[in-house]
């Protein structure tokens, strides 16, 4: 089993996300994380799916996804072939703020992005291992809430959706 990042470029079509996720559901494969947003091209959406499967499965999965009519193109990558980030937010009670926490914030280069009377919110981006490490530490500071995004990723190998679309057969 390997961790893969699947990049799916799609038309902006109602239900497209459902059409893609049922491919995983049907095969009993759990999606580790998923993010969807508009790509830099008007009308084209980019869905980033993180999944842990065998080499064989990832090939089949990407072919099945690419078969979906409104999917333009699918790429999949191993972790070392993508540059990726995840964002994490941590809500901590104000009373927990003390010099040792300051040290942690500096060490991780995290940011305080909101400060209220009762709590502050820290933001930190990185790989899951990094955001997880900070989470473990902050648990000792009476962490109130935690949220983490799926990964956003950019592939290292060169490819161009624009070029692909222009090469219509």
């Amino acid at each position, binding site marked *: 089993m390997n961790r893969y990042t699947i990049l799916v470029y*799609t*038309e902006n079509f*109602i*239900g497209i996300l*459902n*059409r893609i996720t*049922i491919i995983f559901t*049907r095969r009993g494969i759990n999606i580790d994380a998923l993010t969807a947003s508009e790509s830099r091209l008007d009308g084209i959406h980019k869905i980033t799916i993180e999944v842990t499967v065998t080499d064989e499965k990832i*090939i*089949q999965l990407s*072919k*099945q996804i*690419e*078969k979906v*009519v*409104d*999917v*333009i193109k699918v790429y999949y990558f191993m972790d070392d072939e993508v540059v990726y980030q995840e964002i994490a937010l941590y809500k901590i009670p104000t009373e927990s703020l003390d010099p040792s926490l300051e040290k942690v914030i500096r060490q991780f280069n995290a940011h305080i992005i909101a400060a209220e009377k009762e709590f502050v919110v820290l933001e930190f981006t990185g790989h899951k291992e990094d955001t997880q490490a900070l989470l473990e530490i902050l648990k000792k500071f009476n962490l109130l809430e935690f949220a983490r995004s799926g990964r956003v990723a950019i592939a290292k190998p060169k490819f161009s959706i624009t070029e692909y*679309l222009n090469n*219509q*057969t």
Partner: protein
Amino acid sequence: MVRGADIVVRSLIAENAEFIFGYPGGAIMPVYDALYDYSDQIRHVLTRHEQGAIHAAQGYARVSGKVGVVLATSGPGATNLITGLADAQIDSTPLVCITGQVAAHLLGSDAFQETDVIGLSMPGTKWNIQVRRVEDIAPAIAKAFHIAKTGRPGPVLVDITKNAQVEFGEFNYEPCLGIRSYRPYVAINPTAIAAAAQLINDAKRPYVLYGQGVILANAEQELKGFLDKSGIPAASTLLGSGAISQDHPSYVGKLGMHGNYAPNILTNQCDVLIAIGMRFDDRVTGDLKRYAKQAQVVHLELDPSEIDKNVKCAVPVLGDCKQSLPLLTDAVNSNNHHDWFQKFRELDKEEKAAVMSYDLESTHGGLHMGEVIQLINQFKDENAILVSDVGQHQMISWRYFHYKESRTQVTSGGLGTMGFALPAALGAQLHDFKRQVICVVGDGGIQMTIQEFGTIMQTKAPVKVVLLNNNYLGMVRQWQQLFYDKRYSFTELENPDFIKIAEAYKLKAVKVTERHELKEAVAQMILHEGPFFLEVVVEKEDNVFPMIATGCSVEEVRLS
């Protein structure tokens, strides 16, 4: 300006749809109202259940090669289509299903007969769309037809809210010529052709397996050309039957769980396996771990997701086999594999002695299903269509029906849908009243859609319905006998008087219980002008052999 409902009908006419198979209801009533004005341009067939409508459309599509069109209302009308959608999806049958939906402002409010048809039909459609505005109707239908019939065909569903059907809009129909995210055909890679030809030319025991892909690509002549030149033995999948005539010298039989003995066993003795338009279904391969491991596989296939899905191939030839087959034919050497063919002939003798003589030549005891099919062969036209349901009779009729032409085989292959045959036969018959359409069903399956006798009565479609009645859910009973210690758990049926039912629907009906009555009854049926119902009471506990039991290898095919 015209109403959305008129746009629906005029779009279907613009796509040259001849038939609509459907059933009215509240949310589709505006379209039904519009249909009233176009009855001279498009024919609506009122079935007795939406499942009947979609199977009829499948039967029509399978024999005509055209897109089958289905019309149903929202809620239960739409959910009744689900079985047919799943069936058409797995058997790659082109359909456009149009369902009515509650008005857009009611979506999500649990309105009367509202159901999430888009969500429900998603796994069973190649594509689906909900249309909520009148101006989107024609483009959606155009796209639906394009997607249904191009590439690997499949069912498409267009859900149209009631408000869109009653709003007024312009009608300027523009057929869909392409979709940027959808590339149904890929260019043939000449390197793959060369590599495939090399393997084939070097092979000592090459073997062709062909499937429905050949028929869907209209590549029957191209397959024949390839076989004529290469002289390679060729076996058919269930749905590939008819792609070449069984009289062709290369034809060696049928593959799979209840296929022929030689084609299964020799799959594990060939050195190059050339799969054409087939997807290595588990009913064909048996245990994959012991399937053709000695062979190098060449796979001619349109759908990239089928490559390496079940069987790893040495040379994938992606693309339309109508294009790739002639290229491959040019590149292979003329040959005849005399000794290799001989191996098939020898094993055929074993099957004939162990199975066929019992199935076809018994002179006493109960009637066997095979005898009925053999008599049908005697009287049928060359281009007669066999529509079968699912179960023992399906396997027996497939084994013994003499396929001579393409698109003469209609059955539910991938999904195995009992109840498929009667409505599918109706649809096949409506395509051409002059073609013989013989519908073979079991006593279980016929009762799942028996209401479609009503549609046969109303359309006067001259379908010949042959009920092979063993008073059992025969295939399940066979498995219970072989694998569940004869514990016949809920497989015996107390049946109605089928003759009375058929006669109530004004079908000419004949029942045969004795061997000596059979020939005359079959002849009478074939010669009868209108619809005909023939019930043949057959041996209760016959089994279908050869058989590859679940989990067994193709070479473990058993004769008894």
